[in-house]
């Protein structure tokens, strides 16, 4: 049994909220740099250069990479041999978000009720997912999600007969409809299988994998490559102004499902694909 104080969780979440909004992970940064070399449209190249410059300014002038610093999605993988002392874990995480968004000069983008829409003014509550895992550690992943791209995401309940062709079509149509709204070049998370909510969660998790890190399952890896190629053939391009780089990564997660179903979730993310992980 290992004891972890809730204040450690709060502090970690706070720091991660700030760091992730000012600096992209190295894999994402590298993927964007490589995109510049592949882009064939002159305007597209120019846009990608602006994004590179934007990241430089963000780091140097301490300005968030994007003004939409997101709704804060947090994945908590809690070892079953951990005991948390202090505050209720959910409060500890939200307190971290509250402090991070205040001290980090991040935007408060959350409304307390979906219909009456009054801003909560501290970006809480976050969307927190808990998972109990073996071991005595807590692994925290903070992944703020911008809504320009979130709004373009979809869950599609396919039929088993639709098979892999149906999955491809669902992904391509979703990306096409997302277009410029999702601030391309995009990163795409796909969840296949499970139930309605499970595939959505898998799609979100897929976005927290390293960009273009391929699946271990051979057919899934093939599908990831094929889809990425086809998406880049759509012509949407950087900022949606046309070009050959529409997405820099596509990750798929799969899981068992029901005999009657083939749920597919497509979580669209923009080039500001933010995620950071820490282990306590």
């Amino acid at each position: 049994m290992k004891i972890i104080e809730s204040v450690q969780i709060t502090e970690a979440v706070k720091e991660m909220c700030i760091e992730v909004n000012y600096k992209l992970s190295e894999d994402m940064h590298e993927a964007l740099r490589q995109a510049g070399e592949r882009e064939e449209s002159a305007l597209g190249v120019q846009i990608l250069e602006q994004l590179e410059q934007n990241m430089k300014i963000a780091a140097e002038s301490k300005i968030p990479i994007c003004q939409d610093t997101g709704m804060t999605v947090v994945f908590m993988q809690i070892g079953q041999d951990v005991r948390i002392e202090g505050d209720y874990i959910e409060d500890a995480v939200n307190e971290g978000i509250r402090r991070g968004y205040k001290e980090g000069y991040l935007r408060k983008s959350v409304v307390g009720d979906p219909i009456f829409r009054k801003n909560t003014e501290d970006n809480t509550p976050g969307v927190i997912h808990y998972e109990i895992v073996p071991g005595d550690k807590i692994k925290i992943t903070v992944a703020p999600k911008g809504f320009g791209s979130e709004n373009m995401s979809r869950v599609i309940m396919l039929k088993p007969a639709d098979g892999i062709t149906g999955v491809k079509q669902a992904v391509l149509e979703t990306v096409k409809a997302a277009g410029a709204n999702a601030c391309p070049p995009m990163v795409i998370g796909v969840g296949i299988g499970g139930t309605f909510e499970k595939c959505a969660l898998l799609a979100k998790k897929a976005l927290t994998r390293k960009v273009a890190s391929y699946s271990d399952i051979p057919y899934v890896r093939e599908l990831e490559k094929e889809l990425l190629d086809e998406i880049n053939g759509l012509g949407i391009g950087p900022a949606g102004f046309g070009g050959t780089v529409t997405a820099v990564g596509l990750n798929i997660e799969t899981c068992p499902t029901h005999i009657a179903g083939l749920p597919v979730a497509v979580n669209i993310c923009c080039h500001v694909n933010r995620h950071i992980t820490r282990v306590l």
Partner: protein
Amino acid sequence: MEHHIRMPLTKDKVKELKAGDYVYITGTLYSARDAAHKRMYESLEKGEVLPFPLENQIIYYMGPTPGREGQVIGSAGPTTSGRMDKYTPCLLNQGLCGMIGKGKRSEEVLSGMKQNTAVYFAAVGGAGALLSKCIKKSEVIAYEDLGTEAVRKLYAENFPVIVAADSEGNDIYDIK
């Protein structure tokens, strides 16, 4: 084609701007996004006056991050314009001359732009740090309770945009 324009924007100037042109804007811009649009729309329905004049002006669909000490504004890139489509035709009828955002507009907006000789610009989404450097002044002038969604009067210098849709209905998101 490249243009450097100074605000206010006249209809003659709007007519010269064609989809795909590069434009650098200097002068006053007003920021307003979802919640501010809803309020303006409701004000107009009630016959009230708006908190700022729309005639020959540009609305920038943007809600910034808070600026630090010594910064005019925080990150300040465009938000998705399509969410404002419901409210836009009515603002165009009030004399609004231009909008800055990202993504496609509805048929209603494009035809309202034709009728009223207005232009729709796209700024690069997700380049909020870069764009903030072109904003030299920022002041909340209405709906302060909306936080980031309050209306701000901005002074921009060489703010870089691309004409996404012109007053003749040409749309860069369609041409490619």
